[in-house]
């Protein structure tokens, strides 16, 4: 034990000396390097990230169809229209719902599966592959497949309903059910990804702690609740973070499934942007959605990192 720590201190001091030396020598040589390597990255970042963001903020103050240059300045009216639009409010609610379902269904499911699949037992790789497969599938393909599964005339749901002799539910055409059908697909599509995160987290756990708990006579549940879960906390926080980001970006799975319908019941913020901003040629309104989305993203990302991921 002491041996290892001793060598590691030696190792850590040696390069730091070298670093100091190098720092001194590169003081002069730094400028050419900066001039050579910074501009391309900076230019690309400005051109494709900063500039469009600024442009969106600018357009959001105009009523603009997307043709020619924006001239019709309307101040903050686009934002006013936006927050009075029931479809937009539904989309905000749906985004929140997706995060909630991720936390109470998807992540527990992923943890449960990962505790079984993190061990070295026969066939484990196969099962990991099976559960991870939906995540590998392209979103649009997954959406189309599920549209067919849900189809009430020729789909899997229709066959199942026939088998049990009940009337076929047309889940994607029902404004109260459609969002749950979509949520089911989201859980199916992404639980494998979260599962992989947890498997990685579990495999890096210090086994000796678990052994100690076992010697102390902890039951299976106690081991999980008081040892495994606290040690997985950083992975859990990361997983929730991905769920939030995924919810805010959700678009390509929804479009082939429902396109945001029926009656805008399955809109997310991004599908709302597309349906109301792009297809209706209301680029100003669309940009306003973009600005709201940006503000939410930035607040959440930084807020979450600050509050929950401070120590990670």
């Amino acid at each position: 034990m002491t041996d290892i720590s001793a060598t590691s201190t030696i190792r850590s001091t040696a390069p730091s000396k070298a670093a100091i030396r190098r720092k001194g020598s590169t003081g002069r040589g730094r400028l050419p390097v900066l001039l050579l390597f910074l501009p391309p990255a900076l230019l690309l970042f400005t051109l494709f990230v900063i500039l469009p963001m600024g442009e969106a903020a600018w357009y959001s103050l105009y009523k603009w169809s997307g043709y020619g240059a924006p001239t019709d300045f309307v101040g903050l009216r686009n934002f006013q229209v936006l927050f009075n639009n029931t479809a937009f409010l539904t989309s905000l609610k749906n985004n929140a719902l997706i995060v909630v379902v991720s936390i109470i269904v998807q992540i527990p499911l992923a943890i449960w599966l990962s505790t079984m699949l993190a061990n070295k037992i026969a066939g484990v790789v196969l099962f990991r592959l099976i559960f991870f497969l939906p995540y590998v599938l392209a979103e649009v393909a997954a959406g189309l497949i599920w549209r067919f599964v849900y189809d009430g005339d020729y789909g899997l749901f229709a066959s199942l309903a026939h088998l049990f002799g009940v009337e076929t539910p047309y889940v994607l055409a029902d404004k109260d059910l459609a969002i749950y059908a979509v949520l089911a697909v989201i859980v199916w599509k992404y639980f494998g990804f979260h599962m992989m995160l947890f498997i990685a987290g579990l495999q890096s756990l210090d086994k000796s702690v678990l052994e100690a708990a076992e010697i102390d006579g902890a039951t299976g549940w106690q081991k999980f609740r008081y040892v495994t879960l606290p040690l997985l906390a950083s992975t859990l926080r990361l997983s929730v973070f991905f769920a939030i980001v995924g919810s805010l970006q959700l678009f390509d799975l929804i479009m082939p499934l429902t396109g945001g319908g029926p009656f805008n019941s399955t809109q997310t913020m991004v599908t709302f942007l597309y349906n109301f901003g792009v297809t209706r040629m209301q680029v100003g309104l669309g940009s306003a959605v973009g600005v709201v989305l940006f503000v939410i993203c930035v607040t959440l990302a930084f807020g979450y990192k600050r509050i929950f991921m401070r120590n990670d």
Partner: protein
Amino acid sequence: MLQIVGVRALRGKRTAMLTVSTGLAVLLGAASAMADTTVKWLHLELDPGYVAIWRKIADTYEAKHPGVKIQMQFLENEAFKAKLPTLLQSSDAPDFFYSWGGGVLKQQMATGALLDLTTAMKANDGAWQKSFNPAAIEGLTFDGKISAVPFKLGTVSFFYNKALFAKAGVDAAAIKTWDDYLAAVKKIKDAGIVPIAGAGGEKWPIHFYWSYLVMRDGGQKVFDAAKNGKGDGFNDPAVVKAGEQLAELGKLQPFQPGYLGATWPQTLGVFADGKAAMILGFENTEGNQKTNAGDGKGLASDNIGRFAFPAVTGGAGAVTDTLGGLNAWAVSKKAPPEALDFLAYLNNADNQRQMAKAGMIIPAAVGAEDGITNPLLKQAAEQLAQTTWHQNFFDQDLGPSVGRVVNDVSVGIVSGQIAPKDGAAQIQDAFEQDQL
């Protein structure tokens, strides 16, 4: 004779093109001087048979004009509408593309995305212009500018499955009024047959019902007033009444199960597979239902009947008023002169007659009507010839933002989600917002 007119039109068009602003002329000249010019043609035709006819015309043209390549590009209907604004302003813009005319075309023209065809059309005593049905040219003219090349005329009407109607004991010829129609729907439903195939997922097929009812109830006066922001606009009692009648239809639950999620091709398939007795569709529904049938054949031609949208008792509109398309080819600003040349060829009477013969279109070119042989298409053409008021699709005529609200509201009303009065108010709100 027709060919002579065509050739003269082409020549006139070419000289006209050269007299456009020098900068443009130089640019275009440079483009045409290149060994190979590619004309990019964007369409949304689903029927492979129809596309083949176009391809043949394009091939013939290519053979006559070495160095010109006609490239056909396809986009699905909804994707097309969504993608067009971005596409038009990119360097990848098509040279000419499908248009429904109306407010969308007007807006595209007003913002300078399109080529003004007035000079080309009017050159040589208006030879090119005269080769088209005057109503078509008029419908495509905004602020004195001819904005697109007329392609076809169309009208929306009911198509029905004769066998299913007979089974339910309904006589299509007896459906004269909206009340008759509702009674027929009830009778078909009672016979255990789905009365109507409807595409609530795409919404616009449902807006035909609302549009026709508004036309039958209010007539041209009410709609034109609303469109121009006069009087009560869309809050007019006639418009609200149309909504109430649509809600009445919705209460009978006339559509196939799950229609709120159904796309248009799926819905055509429902009709084609004999799973619904009626469909309110375009003039070429007969051909389209075949393409989307489960067995690839669909209903036999003699099993399909057609009747006009019924009248409304006491309504201001006539039963001879028609709702339908006026489709055209809009030319983008940067299109090479070859694009116009090809368009003139594509839409000359000979080629339009060919398309009409295939049951594809009701031609917009003068002298091509005699090509229509399909009986159902002929009926539609006759109805159009006797029209007392031909109205373009509401969602196209009112422009993209109001048009989409009309579609939303139509589906909302028929499914009982929106009260007819609120629906009318929502459209008026959207209209006023659009005008601000």
